[in-house]
């Protein structure tokens, strides 16, 4: 219905890909709007996905805005709604409303080197930026992707990450050593320190568990990155997505409308309630 922000559109699950098994399983869902093209989005925006009878969850749009016809979402099994998503089969109809939030200022980064640092489920929100950068490869300088999981099984987008090689430097890591793992063993922030990306003309984009982000930012500072060169996202609990239900704020900003994307220069000025 026109002008009713709470009424979802219907979308069909056309593909389900299991990224990560286990207790904190992650699956990627490809959704197609059943009526027309639905809405377009920018890198970093989110959507409220719902299963009727279970509720809604805010999920980052993980596909590139340059891709038309479908949107992808990588959902970690957490509670009521996300677990219900993990039970779905291809063909199911779900609700979707959005897009919500601001976006990564990708157009301001033309000519710059991009350093992505992700951990756990935190590759999903920055994946559209990575996709946009490699699709419009000539618009950007070097592209470097750091990503880590607890174990090799926890690495999401494994085959897509492999496909990035060539267009981007990809540095993967796992927290603890395991047979057959040939890349870095240790936490993502440590891998970052070992590879020492240069801050010269660079933008760092990081997303992941709060503890990881804290150390990543500390290490980026140590490498010489300024606050203005560092971008991250904030995931506070959300219900409405339109600055009304009142729960997602950092001080005067509702993250659902003013975020979720922040430069560290802006974020450090806000109350650290995330």
């Amino acid at each position, binding site marked *: 219905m026109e002008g009713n922000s709470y009424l979802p559109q219907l979308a069909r699950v056309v593909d389900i890909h299991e990224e990560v098994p286990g207790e904190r399983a992650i699956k990627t869902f490809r959704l197609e709007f059943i009526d027309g093209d639905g809405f377009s989005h920018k890198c970093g925006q989110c959507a409220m996905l719902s299963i009727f*009878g279970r509720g809604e969850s805010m999920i980052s749009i993980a596909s590139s805005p340059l891709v038309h016809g479908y949107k992808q979402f990588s959902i970690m099994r957490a509670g009521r709604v996300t677990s219900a998503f993990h039970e779905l089969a291809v063909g199911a109809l779900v*609700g979707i409303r959005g897009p919500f939030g601001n976006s990564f200022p990708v157009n301001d980064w033309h000519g710059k080197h991009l350093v992505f640092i992700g951990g756990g489920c935190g590759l999903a929100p920055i994946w559209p930026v990575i996709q946009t950068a490699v699709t419009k490869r000539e618009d950007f300088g070097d592209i470097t992707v750091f990503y880590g999981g607890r174990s090799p099984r926890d690495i999401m987008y494994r085959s897509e990450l492999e496909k990035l090689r060539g267009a981007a430097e990809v540095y993967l890591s796992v927290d603890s050593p395991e047979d057959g793992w040939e890349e870095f063993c240790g936490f993502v922030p440590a891998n970052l320190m070992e590879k020492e990306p240069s801050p010269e003309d660079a933008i760092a984009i990081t997303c992941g568990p709060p503890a990881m982000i804290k150390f990543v930012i500390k290490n980026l500072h140590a490498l010489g990155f300024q606050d203005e060169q560092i971008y991250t996202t904030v995931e506070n609990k959300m219900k409405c997505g339109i*600055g009304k239900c009142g729960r997602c704020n950092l*001080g005067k900003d509702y993250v659902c409308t003013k975020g979720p994307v922040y430069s560290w220069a802006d974020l450090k000025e806000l109350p650290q309630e995330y």
Partner: protein
Amino acid sequence: MERILDKGRLGALVAALADWTVLAPALQDGLWAYRPVAGGEASLTLGHPNTVQPPKGQSFPQREVFFTFDETPDGQPRLTPLVPRPAPRVVFGVRPCDGQGLTHLDQVFGEEAPDAYYQARRGTLAYVGLACNSPPSRHCFCTCVGGSPFGEAGLDVLMIDLSDRYLVRALTPVGEALMTAGQGVLTEAGAQDRAEAQQRRLAALAHPQRAVAAPQAVPERLKAGFGSALWERLAQPCIGCGICTFLCPTCHCFDINDEVASQSPVCGSRVRTWDSCQFPDFTMHTSGHNPRPDLGARLRQRVSHKFQYYFENHGVFQCTGCGRCITACPVGIDIVTVVNQVAAEAAAMQPADS
């Protein structure tokens, strides 16, 4: 437009407003609440200090169904939106603090993506205010937060009590329409009536009230006092009941949940209900991580939202000084005291020249 209404003819005025459903404060079980009134009730008076609940529920009900969902025979979800189409209603006896509160709700539900449900209810609502000749509660503090006992914001009509009669003043086109509908009951207002109303106004403004100290400095001082240990100390007695937010004329936080009547076939409704920043679940992530993990952080959110964050966004406080949260708090947490203590501590910690 200004007219005079004899106090004994309030019921007749209500009867004249045949195109509206009229609500007015009524005393039930010892509590004042807005209730529908039938026209011609000779006994109708506006004898309330203020209602226990502000009138916000008229446009923002405590529970509201956004849409129902069920399954078609072939198992597809089917949504039926329930945007209300209420008949015109007019609420009598609204105190100016609560009129002010409505302007904040209008702001929140009107900005960015307007809220279709709020707008639909609000669009057919009119508010007839009643000026406060004296503070209805010992916890009133409207004058220090930008309000006035004779304030007109958010109201369509203001009534001023002149002992045996009211001076009735239209403030909006809707207010004019109401007074036109009631013209058979209203009489011309004269210079004497206006002079008397002005006297009442000056006397009301002179009435001592409780006060937030140096209000213009409060947003900056709360910002400086974000890390103060006072938040935790002042919140210590809090039992997290949320009554402060439920009775607040400006609190607008809500939750959205699915209420399920049947799992197979799926059938139920998506429902909005008032929520409260005083509840731990309000911000708690599924992982158990909570950005506002304690009573102090939650008290700070309630107070800073009204006295700092909203001010930073809109240039006005989101508190209207009605005093309900102070009156109703079972453990005596007092928003005026909290603001004053945190602000005073921050002021004392600032260098003297700034």
